């Protein structure tokens, strides 16, 4: 399924070429820098979690990686090719994107919505498997029982899972998920991220924006911490998720410790007297850009 150019590129360099590569990516909206000078690589078989406070630029970065926004500086390479030189149809066969918001203008059924994920493969040999892929995707996302329901009548979590099924049905080697667990209950949160892991184990690359840091630590090979559009840390969760860095980035004291039984990384906010009472306002962000941190005070 991998394109020839990418295979050739992979054969030339001895370490496996990254599937997705960002080089000096910057985005500016109306004079305000949203994402600044981001560099990273994502290899096949990896799950990368993008974390950071609200307005840190996670979703914007994901839009750049998905090819929705052209960065003002820098390039994004997908399978070694510039994202913006790829045709939209080709791009749709290489990466699938799950957005935060699930909207549908007309009352299609869940099956119809999931089948839309097959659109990029129309007229190709892969389209023969459409029915099977749709059925499997419905099963994996646990929405088979909702198959004949109308999408707009579903609850937020059900919509999220149905959309996840659509993204799976697209059968791309790169998955980009923007807060896929946002409206889900604990069982389905675990199921979605476990599925992301399974996809990675099969050789896919997954980028996922997450708010729950413990979830990110549990399921991601690598985490990237964003703050005000800049990469503050990138690496294995255990190296990056330190109390000091997270407390500073989130401007709230955060504890990191190992689970006494499983040894998993547990990340919790410190609650009580130390916690600041006023939420961060947009005005505070400029102070943050200036380098001051008040959360740990």
């Amino acid at each position: 399924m991998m394109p020839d150019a990418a295979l050739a590129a992979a054969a030339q360099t001895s370490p496996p070429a990254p599937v997705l590569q960002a080089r000096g990516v910057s985005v500016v909206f109306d004079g305000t820098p949203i994402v600044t000078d981001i560099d990273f690589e994502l290899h096949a078989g990896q799950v990368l979690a993008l974390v950071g406070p609200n307005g840190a630029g996670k979703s914007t970065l994901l839009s750049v990686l998905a090819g929705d926004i052209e960065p003002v500086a820098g390039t994004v390479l997908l399978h070694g090719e510039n994202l913006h030189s790829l045709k939209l149809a080709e791009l749709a066969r290489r990466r699938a994107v799950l957005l935060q918001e699930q909207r549908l203008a007309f009352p299609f059924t869940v099956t119809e919505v999931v089948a839309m994920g097959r659109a990029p493969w129309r007229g190709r040999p892969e389209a023969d498997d459409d029915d099977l892929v749709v059925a499997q995707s419905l099963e994996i996302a646990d929405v088979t029982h909702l198959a004949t329901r109308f999408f707009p009548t579903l609850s937020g979590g059900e919509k999220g899972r149905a959309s996840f099924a659509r993204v799976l049905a697209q059968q791309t080697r790169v998955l980009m998920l923007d807060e896929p667990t946002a409206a889900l209950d604990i069982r389905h949160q675990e199921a979605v991220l476990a599925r992301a892991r399974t996809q990675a184990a099969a050789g896919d690359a997954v980028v996922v924006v997450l708010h729950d840091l413990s979830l990110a630590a549990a399921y991601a090979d690598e985490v990237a911490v964003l703050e005000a559009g800049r990469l503050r840390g990138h690496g294995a969760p255990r190296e990056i998720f330190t109390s000091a860095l997270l407390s500073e980035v989130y401007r709230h004291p955060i504890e990191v410790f190992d689970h006494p039984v499983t040894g998993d990384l547990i990340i919790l906010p410190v609650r009580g007297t130390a916690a600041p009472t006023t939420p961060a306002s947009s005005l505070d962000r400029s102070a943050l850009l200036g380098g001051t941190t008040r959360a740990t005070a």
Partner: protein
Amino acid sequence: MTGAALAKADRAATAKQPTQPEPSTPDPRRTVRVGLLFTVLAVALVVLAVVSAGIGQLHIPASEVLGSILHRVGLDVGPMPTHPNGDAALWTIRFPRVTLAILVGAALASAGALMQGVFGNPLADPGVVGVSSGAAVAACLVIVFGWSFLGSWTVAAFAFVGGLLTTLLVYFMSRSAGRTEVVTLVLTGVAVNAVCGAGIAFLTFLGDSQSREQIVFWQLGSLNGTRWQYVGVVAPLVVIGLVGVFVLSRRLDLLSLGERSARHLGVDVERLRIVSVVLVALLTAAAVAFCGIIAFVGLVVPHLIRMLVGPGHRVLLPASALGGAVLLLAADLVARTAVPYADLPIGMLTALVGGPFFFWLIRRTRRTSGGWA
């Protein structure tokens, strides 16, 4: 346990054990319904066309109408019209009118369905949004100033340009963040209709009494006085429009996921938009050019079709075209025959039925979306 509680428990039990549907195959009931709908609409169209051609001041039985058609195509089957003027009446007055009603109905309904798909809003309609009146202003210019440099195509060409400009205007003014909110759309329509109304009023004031009369009748919408020449102009426009619409249908389905998700699935959203806007203008111009403003067909028909067979555009668009043709043919029959020796304006009839329907639709949309979203 009371009976009610038992019933409740029973329902809960059945809810817990959902019958495993075959997920990958389309709903068989819907497939049957689609087949049934197309059959019913096609039969209704043929029957209505034959009956409609026979009814009027000069009554011609259906068998004679069929006989006349068969003789024209070289088959000497069936009776010819018995009345000495029967055959001539059919071929110079009735058939062009019936054909134009079919074409215009198909154009309006598919333009409505296309517009709703592109705007992502079930309330979009060329009449409501003001595209029809935009096309009308441009066409009134031709009537008032008596331009004819494009021959019989002049009115249609101007209507197309007027419609295109209005569609672009409405499209770019009423959208925010990739979608059009109901309130914005309807209010934009109010504004556009007001300005176009002023334009038409000014042109009415400017014109001589003959063009005034023409404009007034034309604003009411009528198929009265249809000639083959008109059909010759409208037919190619409608055929191009319909072919274009069907080519876009799969992409329109994806567009209902939102612009970004459609793009992620490989749809060139920018191009889809522009092509759609041009097609809407083309179809509306085809409808408006000779028949004037016939509102609400593009609203009512796609909506009813969607309720019956779902929102998939591959079925919705052809079914709407067929349904629009049936509806306008029926409306024209009523317009011609409701009052003896009078030809009621068809636009008046469609607005009479369409207005309340639109109101109901607004109420329903508001309820289901939890506000004016």
